[in-house]
């Protein structure tokens, strides 16, 4: 029955735990809407006939609602709408609250592609592999304008906003390939900003992941140059490589020793006092800014000698460097990428 309704309404298949809850409410709402609107239209039509003009310029009785009629007319729709609200909100709160131990994936949207990165695994462009029957959390940001990560088969959607992280989660119930569509207008090829989520049964997924980490994968997932030269490793490892090759580590240490420039250990979100006396927080914006315009905000006690890397670092390079810097905090014993989020996305209750 539900499958019949689903097909009649052109809904895609239900491939996540959220989908069936959404569809259940959907069927009720749509049915009531159809009945109400057709009912009103037909009633108007019927009245056209029943109360048709029989005498030209006839006079009519004065008809007014009594208090009871008004009460019913207000209370019935109100309660029906509020009931839908309660069910919908309850489902939404469940959707907006990721469970405790999710499998995390970083998502970056940029015109006009989706990039995925596992905290301790490979990165990919366009295709995301996830295990079935495990909650997966997506931690997302954008490199340029607002995009929106939409998977119709999962019934999930979350805007991807530059300058902040948003999150969403899902638990896929059926292995298969599911389309990702960008759902926030972002320019010329907004309508081609597609991706794919490949859901694999858990054991198959684990095998695939192990394969990826060895770098011996026979499957080609990344289509085209993702700006990292098809580097097979995490963003953080790539950032480390860039730091070495661009000579950052000549002036910045990663072990806490101040050198020609401030140390990167624990730098992320550190409160710094600048030469001018003002204090700033070393967030992504500041770190990126310092690479492009280093003489603008010099930390107190250091000389303004850092050259600009504008033109020498691509956008993926700067992102990777920021991620590398973020990973350097003194409670991790080795310079490995963190296994859990280094931040709390705003609004997570």
């Amino acid at each position: 029955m539900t499958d019949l309704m689903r097909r009649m309404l052109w809904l895609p298949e239900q491939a996540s735990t959220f989908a069936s809850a959404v569809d259940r409410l959907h069927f009720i709402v749509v049915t009531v809407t159809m009945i109400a609107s057709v009912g009103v239209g037909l009633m108007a039509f019927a009245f056209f006939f029943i109360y048709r003009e029989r005498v030209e310029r006839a006079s009519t009785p004065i008809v007014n609602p009594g208090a009871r009629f008004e009460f019913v007319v207000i209370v019935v729709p109100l309660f029906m709408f509020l009931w839908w609200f309660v069910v919908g909100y309850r489902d939404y709160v469940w959707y907006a609250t990721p469970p405790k131990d999710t499998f995390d994936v970083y998502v970056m949207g940029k015109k006009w592609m989706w990039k995925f990165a596992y905290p301790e695994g490979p990165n990919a462009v366009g295709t995301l592999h996830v295990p079935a029957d495990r909650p997966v959390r997506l931690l997302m940001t954008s490199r340029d304008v607002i995009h929106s990560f939409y998977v119709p088969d999962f019934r999930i959607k979350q805007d991807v906003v530059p300058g902040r992280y948003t999150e969403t989660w899902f638990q896929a119930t059926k292995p298969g390939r599911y389309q990702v569509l960008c759902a926030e207008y972002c320019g010329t090829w907004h309508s081609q900003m597609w991706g794919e989520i490949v859901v694999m049964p858990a054991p198959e997924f684990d095998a695939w992941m192990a394969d990826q980490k060895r770098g011996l994968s026979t499957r080609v997932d990344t289509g085209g140059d993702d700006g990292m030269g098809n580097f097979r490793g995490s963003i953080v490892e790539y950032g480390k490589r860039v730091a070495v090759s661009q000579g950052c580590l000549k002036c910045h240490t990663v072990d806490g020793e101040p050198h020609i420039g401030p140390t990167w250990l624990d730098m992320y979100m550190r409160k710094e006092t600048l030469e001018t006396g003002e204090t700033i927080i070393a967030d992504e914006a500041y770190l990126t800014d310092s690479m492009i315009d280093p003489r603008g905000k010099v930390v107190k006690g250091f000389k303004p000698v850092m050259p600009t890397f504008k033109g020498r670092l691509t956008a993926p390079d700067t992102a990777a460097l920021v991620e590398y810097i973020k990973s350097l905090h003194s409670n991790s014993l080795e310079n490995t990428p963190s296994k859990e989020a280094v931040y709390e996305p705003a609004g997570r209750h």
Partner: protein
Amino acid sequence: MSSSSAVAGHGDDHGEHNSHLAHHFETIEQQDHAIRLGMWLFLATEVLLFAGIFVGYAVYRHIYHETFH
């Protein structure tokens, strides 16, 4: 401009014809009331227009106070 064509409908026995009374108002009191109400409404819209700017400034000044050294 009130140079538009002659106004019908007032009659000649108007009593005192106030030169400040616009043709579409019946009495000077009505015109006065309309003018006052109109001006207050306009001021309200101006407040709304600029309130957004000032509130935005205040919020950003608070959050990024170090930039406003």
